[in-house]
C-alpha cells in the first residue's frame, strides 16, 4: 500500500512540476507578444466598465514597466488562489467565463471521447483479428481517411448536409438564439450537440483504431496465441480471452492520453458550429487579444490534459500485475 501511495505521489509531483512549467511557457508566450491587450481593447466597453482597481491590476500583469518574473509571480499567486483575472471581452472574471464555457463543452467532449474510444477500440480489434481480410482493409482505410480529414471541414460538410440541405438539424449555437439560459430544454441541447459530437467522434477515432489494430496484431502473432490455437481455442475465444485482456490496458492509456487531441479538435469544430464552448472562447480570446482569458484557458486545458496523462500512468502502474508486483518486490 505504501509503495502504491509513493508511486501515485511521484506521478502527482511530476504533474505539478509540468503544470508549473506549462504556465511559465504560456505566460512567456503572451508576454512577448507585441499585441498590447490594453491598447487593443482600449475604448471597448470592457475597460470602461472595469473598476479602477481592476485596471491597475491589468497593467500590473501586462504593463511593460515591471519585470516579467515579478509579473509572472503575482499572476501565478493570484491564479492559485482562484483569481485568474478579468476577461477583457466578456467583462467577467476569467474563472467564471471558463466555468460556463467548460460546462457547455464538457458533455459534448465527454461523449465524443467515449464514443471514439469505444468504437475505435472495437474496430481496431476487429481489424487486427482479421488481418489482411476485407474487413481489416476496410477499417484500416477508414482510419487512414479520417486521420487525413480536417475535422472542421467534415463539420462544414455535415452542416451542409444536415443543416442546409436536409434541414433536420440546427445550423449553429448550442441553444436557439434569443432563448434565455433557463428555457433551454434538454432537447435543444441534444439537437445542437449531435453534429459536433458526430464530427469529433468520427475524426478522433483513427489513432485508437490504428493503435489497437497494431497491438492486436502483436497479440495474434504471440506465442501464447499460437499455444491457445494449439489447445483448440477458437478465434472468438482467443480474441475475447487473450486479445482484450492484453490490449485493454494500453488502449485505456492511449485513451486518457488522447484528451489533448479531442480538446484540440473541439477548438475547430466549435468554431464551425458556433458552439459557445471553451474552444470557441479560446479562439475569441486569441483573436481579440483577451490575454487573461487566453492564458486561463491554456493553463486549464493543460491541467485537464495532464490529469488524463496522470490517470493513464496510475492505471498502468496499479492495474498491470507485472508492474504492480515488480514494484512491491523492490
Amino acid at each position: 500500500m505504501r509503495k502504491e501511495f509513493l508511486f501515485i505521489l511521484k506521478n502527482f509531483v511530476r504533474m505539478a512540476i509540468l503544470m508549473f512549467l506549462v504556465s511559465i511557457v504560456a505566460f512567456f508566450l503572451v508576454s512577448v507578444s507585441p499585441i498590447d491587450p490594453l491598447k487593443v481593447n482600449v475604448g471597448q466597453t470592457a475597460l470602461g466598465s472595469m473598476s479602477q482597481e481592476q485596471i491597475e491590476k491589468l497593467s500590473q500583469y501586462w504593463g511593460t514597466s515591471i519585470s516579467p518574473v515579478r509579473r509572472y509571480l503575482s499572476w501565478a499567486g493570484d491564479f492559485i488562489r482562484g483569481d485568474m483575472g478579468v476577461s477583457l471581452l466578456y467583462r467577467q472574471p476569467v474563472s467564471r467565463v471558463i466555468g460556463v464555457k467548460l460546462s457547455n463543452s464538457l458533455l459534448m467532449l465527454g461523449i465524443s471521447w467515449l464514443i471514439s474510444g469505444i468504437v475505435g477500440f472495437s474496430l481496431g480489434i476487429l481489424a487486427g483479428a482479421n488481418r489482411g481480410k476485407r474487413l481489416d482493409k476496410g477499417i484500416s482505410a477508414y482510419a487512414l481517411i479520417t486521420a487525413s480529414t480536417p475535422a472542421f471541414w467534415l463539420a462544414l460538410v455535415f452542416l451542409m448536409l444536415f443543416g442546409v440541405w436536409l434541414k433536420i438539424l440546427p445550423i449553429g449555437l448550442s441553444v436557439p438564439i434569443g432563448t434565455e439560459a433557463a428555457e433551454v430544454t434538454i432537447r435543444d441541447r441534444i439537437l445542437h450537440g449531435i453534429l459536433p459530437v458526430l464530427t469529433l467522434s468520427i475524426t478522433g477515432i483513427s489513432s485508437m483504431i490504428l493503435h489497437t489494430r497494431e497491438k492486436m496484431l502483436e497479440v495474434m502473432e504471440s506465442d501464447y496465441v499460437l499455444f491457445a490455437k494449439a489447445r483448440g481455442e477458437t478465434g472468438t475465444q482467443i480474441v475475447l480471452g487473450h486479445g482484450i485482456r492484453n490490449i485493454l490496458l494500453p488502449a485505456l492509456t492511449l485513451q486518457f492520453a488522447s484528451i489533448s487531441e479531442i480538446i484540440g479538435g473541439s477548438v475547430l469544430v466549435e468554431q464551425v458550429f458556433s458552439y459557445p464552448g471553451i474552444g470557441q472562447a479560446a479562439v475569441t480570446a486569441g483573436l481579440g487579444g483577451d490575454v487573461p482569458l487566453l492564458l486561463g484557458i491554456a493553463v486549464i486545458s493543460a491541467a485537464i490534459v495532464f490529469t488524463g496523462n496522470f490517470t493513464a500512468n496510475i492505471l498502468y502502474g496499479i492495474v498491470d500485475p507485472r508492474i504492480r508486483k515488480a514494484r512491491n518486490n523492490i
Partner: protein
Amino acid sequence: MKQWNSRKTMYCFFVLSIIFLAVVTVIGYFSYDKAMVVDFSRKNLPPSFSYPFGTDWMGRDMFARTMTGISMSIMLGVLAAAVSSVIAFSLGIIGASMGKAADGFVSGLIDLVMGIPHILLLVLISFALGKGFKGVVTGIAITHWTSLARLIRGEVLQLKESQYIKIAEKLGHGKLKTAVKHMTPHLLPQVLVGFVLLFPHAILHEAGITFLGFGLPPEQPAVGIILSEGMKYLTMGSWWLALFPGLLLTIVVVLFHLVGDILGRLIDPGRIHQ
C-alpha cells in the same frame, strides 16, 4: 522476377503519389496571380469545365485559389518536417545516449509541449508573434517534433542494447560519437519515414489555424481561409466553395500518409510480408 505482385503495385502507387503531390505543388505555386484575380462578371459560378471548383462571390477562380493554398500548405509542410526532424533527431539522440538527466529533460520537454492541446499551442505562439504569417510558420515548424523524438529515443534505447554498440562503447568511443557514428545509419530510415508522416499533421494544423483566422489576411489563398470563407456562404447555397477545397486537401493528406506508410514498408524488412 517477371510476375507482378502487390509490392510492385505498392511501388507504382508510391511513385504516382509523389508525382501527383509534386505537380499540385508546382501548379499551385504558379497559380498565385490567377488566384488573386477578381472578376465580378463571373461571380458565384458553380463548378464547370472552365472553373472546375467554381467561382466565389468576387468571381475568383476557386481552382486556382485551392491549388495555391494547398501548394503553400505543402511547402510549409516541408519546412515544418525539416525543422521538426532536426529537432527530433537531436533531442532523441541526446535523451537516449547522454545519461539520465538528459533523458529526463527531453521527456519532460516532450510532455510539456504535448501538454497544451496542439491547436491551442499554435494559437498561443501565433499570438506571441503578433498573429501574423510569421507566427503561423514558426508555430507549425517548431511544434511537430514530439512524437518523432519519442520514436527516435525508443529506437536509440533499443540499439544501445545491441552488441555492436556495446562493443563500440567498450572500445572507448564516446557516447555521443557512438550515437552519431554507429546509430545514425540505423536511424535514418526511421527519420525519413517520420519526416514524411509529419506532413499530414503540419498541413492539417496549418489549415486549422488559418481557418480560425490567424496568420493571413482574408484575401490570401490559404486553405483554411478558403474554407472559412466558404463557411460564410454555405447557407446561400454555394456548396462548392467549401466542398472541393476540403476534398482536395483531404486527398493530399491521404497521399502523404500513404507515401509515408509505403516508404516504411519498403524500408523496414520486418514488415516485409504485408
